[in-house]
């Protein structure tokens, strides 16, 4: 049995692994990618890795076993993880403690034409650029809400793309209500300012209360309709204009990855896994850190990761509580500051219900099963559907290959707007006993628990 298994090698997972190993634990660090770093410290396949990431410390630590290209496809209370390395057989890994640092991904909103090739998530554009040194398009537009649009637009412009606009559906004027939270993390303000300077240098217009509400093209994106939005995100009549682009990047905040936490019986909300001051979840031996506990950025993730690693070491009996508190003091302070900022970020950049008015009846909401808005409306209006599960069963929305990862929030929003009540089963589309597709032959080959 392993001491601590850390799932995910982004900022939170790397910090957790180093903290737990530093306290004397034997650590297994897993990631589905070939190299550590996660989305934030994504390493290019050529050239030098991000110097800010603790790659060297990870690589040389005698008590950290690094498992690249390893997916966790299922989990059970214990905690027990079911793994697979590349295309290999299914394996079982039992540990005294598990740290979930599974991150998050861009939230996309449906709009007419969003399934045309050339529409990507902002994070997808960034991953292509950082990891593959490849531009998703020559003339691009970014649309969404939240500060993450800025670094993506800046990086695209620096790499030679013509960025014809950054359309922020929200309004940063709302920051004025959260000045203390901003002052506590001065680096963030500087960072934002730097991106804006880059964008100005490339003459990239940044428009608030604007969004791309339609993608055009026959077979692939050739243009977009941008519009000015009211505060509720409905389109201001007469404000639409067409821009010629070959790629559209969209990002309306982030969605935490919850399925392993839920499979391990840890309590969660759609915003993240519930954790206490030691990053403990409600499931014994299960800790969580980083975006999976709520979106907050790399610095917060690293602080949470360190605390989770220390707490896991305490759980394994490798460290006593007072010592952990001593080592974690600075991380606690960082976590407090960055959480406050993250809370403000959520308050400043909410997704407003008006996005629903951008859609036509035939706009696909679930991309996998190609379920149009009209089918969801029929289920809600005519078939008395009042919960996510039945909505999914009746329409097939959320039943496809991505298992509701892309459309889940949108479908839940449509349901909530229809009934006027909170969705009774908000985690229904986030519950995925199989965290990734697994061939039946591999599943069939699963034998008794063994160590990897």
């Amino acid at each position, binding site marked *: 049995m392993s001491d601590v298994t850390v799932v995910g090698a982004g900022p939170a997972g790397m910090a957790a692994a180093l903290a737990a190993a530093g306290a004397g634990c034997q650590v297994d660090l897993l990631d589905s990618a070939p190299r550590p770093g996660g989305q934030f410290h994504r390493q290019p396949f050529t050239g030098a890795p991000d110097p800010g990431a603790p790659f060297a410390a990870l690589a040389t630590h005698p008590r950290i076993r690094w498992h690249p290209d390893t997916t966790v496809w299922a989990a059970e*209370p214990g905690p027990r993880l079911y793994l697979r390395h590349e295309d290999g057989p299914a394996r079982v890994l039992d540990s005294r403690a598990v740290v979930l640092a599974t991150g998050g991904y861009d939230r996309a909103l449906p709009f007419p034409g969003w399934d045309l090739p050339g529409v990507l998530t902002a994070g997808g554009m960034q991953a292509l650029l950082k990891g593959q040194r490849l531009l998703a398009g020559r003339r691009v537009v970014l649309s969404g809400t939240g500060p993450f649009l800025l670094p993506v637009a800046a990086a695209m412009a620096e790499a030679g793309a013509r960025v014809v606009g950054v359309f922020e559906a929200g309004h940063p004027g709302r920051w004025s209500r959260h000045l203390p939270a901003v002052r506590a993390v001065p680096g963030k303000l500087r960072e934002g300012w730097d991106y804006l300077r880059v964008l100005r240098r490339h003459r990239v217009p940044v428009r608030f209360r604007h969004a791309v509400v339609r993608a055009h093209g026959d077979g692939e994106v050739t243009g977009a309709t941008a519009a000015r939005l009211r505060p509720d995100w409905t389109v201001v009549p007469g404000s639409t204009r067409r821009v010629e682009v070959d790629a559209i990047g969209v990002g309306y905040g982030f969605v935490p990855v919850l399925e392993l936490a839920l499979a391990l019986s840890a309590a969660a909300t759609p915003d993240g896994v519930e954790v206490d001051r030691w990053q403990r979840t409600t499931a014994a031996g299960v800790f969580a850190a980083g975006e999976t506990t709520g979106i907050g950025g790399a610095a917060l993730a690293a602080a949470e990761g360190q605390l989770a690693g220390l707490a896991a070491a305490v759980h394994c009996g490798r460290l006593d509580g007072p010592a952990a508190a001593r080592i974690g003091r600075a991380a606690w302070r960082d976590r407090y500051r960055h959480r406050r900022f993250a809370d403000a970020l959520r308050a400043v950049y909410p997704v407003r219900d008006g996005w629903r008015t951008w859609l036509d009846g035939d706009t696909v909401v679930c991309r996998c099963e190609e379920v149009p808005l009209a089918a969801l409306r029929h*289920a809600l209006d005519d078939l008395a559907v*009042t919960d996510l599960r039945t909505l999914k069963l009746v329409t097939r929305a959320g039943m496809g290959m991505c298992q509701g990862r892309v459309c889940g929030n949108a479908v839940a929003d449509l349901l909530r707007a229809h009934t006027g009540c909170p969705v*009774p089963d908000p985690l229904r589309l986030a519950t995925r006993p199989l965290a990734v597709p697994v061939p039946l032959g591999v599943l069939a080959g699963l034998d008794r628990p063994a160590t990897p």
Partner: protein
Amino acid sequence: MTDVVVIGAGIVGAACADQLAAAGLSVTVLERGAIASGTTGAGEGNVLISDKEPGPELDLALLSREMWARLGDELPEAAAEPKGGIVVALTEDEHAALLDFANRQQAAGVVTEPLTPEQARQAEPYLTPSLAGAVRYPQDMQVQPARATAALLGRARSRGARLHTESPVTGFTRDAAGRITSVHTPRASFPASTVVNAAGLDSAAVAAFAGSALPVQPRRGYILVTEPVPPLVRAKVYDAAYVSNVASGDEALQTSTVVERTDGGTILIGASRERVGLDARLRIDVLARLARQAVRLFPVLATVCAIRAYRGFRPYCPDHLPIISRDPLVPNLVHATGHEGAGIGLAPGTGYLVRCLVTGEPTPLDPAPFRLGRPGLAP
């Protein structure tokens, strides 16, 4: 004044509401959660004749099957796909038992077509070559349970029935003779001249509110779902062990293969049966066993990905027959529950029988084998 309160908006409650509304009664349906949110939403949508022993359940299944076949003409969303079933015997012993079973079914009115291994492989080209024989059951069908439930409730509502979701029943008011006079939920109370208990897994708790007792218990089952694939599987295909599992009360885990493709292109793989109370865990080793058995039946599935697994609980009675009966202690309470894994298939006939019990119309078949108080329900 409501004539009938139906408790439960699963497939059985929906079928009862549909029939009672069609009979001209004023119907209110009370559902604890959302429609089809219990056993119905966790099922495969089996309308099966193949797995039924000759006897009252088979009679009810044949009646219901004919009703399902007609329903599709009236309600397109409740349309059943008449894909037929093929039961595969992998060993000579299984084959002999299967043929004997099929012969007895045929005598009771079931259409059975014994297949040689070659004929079976002609019908299902990806079936394992190592089989002893098979029997085709052309009467087996498949429906999409949640859609069918919604469609039946929709028709009942168009005939005046009212549906209240998120409305768990919390108790009854009864008069001196023991009759229920009103049904309580947290938000409202509903007067009733008759109450139909179609609450599935909750039906024992509902009966207890009226001072009655039902021996209905949960039996856990898992289903594995694959990525969408071309038609590698055409019919509902089972291994012959399925029949003996259904009729068994063994607490230990039982699995036998049921493989079929849905209209969404996915392949459903069942079925496991465990008596573990309402333990909601999903055991990966059980999923592995289902995968193993599916690959044994269809080796081509080894490279097809499972993308989802889900769990449900079937409401079962000790003798594996449903309870469709007036309550001997509570004169105006009618139960329609305990269908185990056969609720989808048996729902239309159950709804019809309930209608007859409520209105006094002649019953289409003898209701005695389904009555509460039969010897098979004794502990």
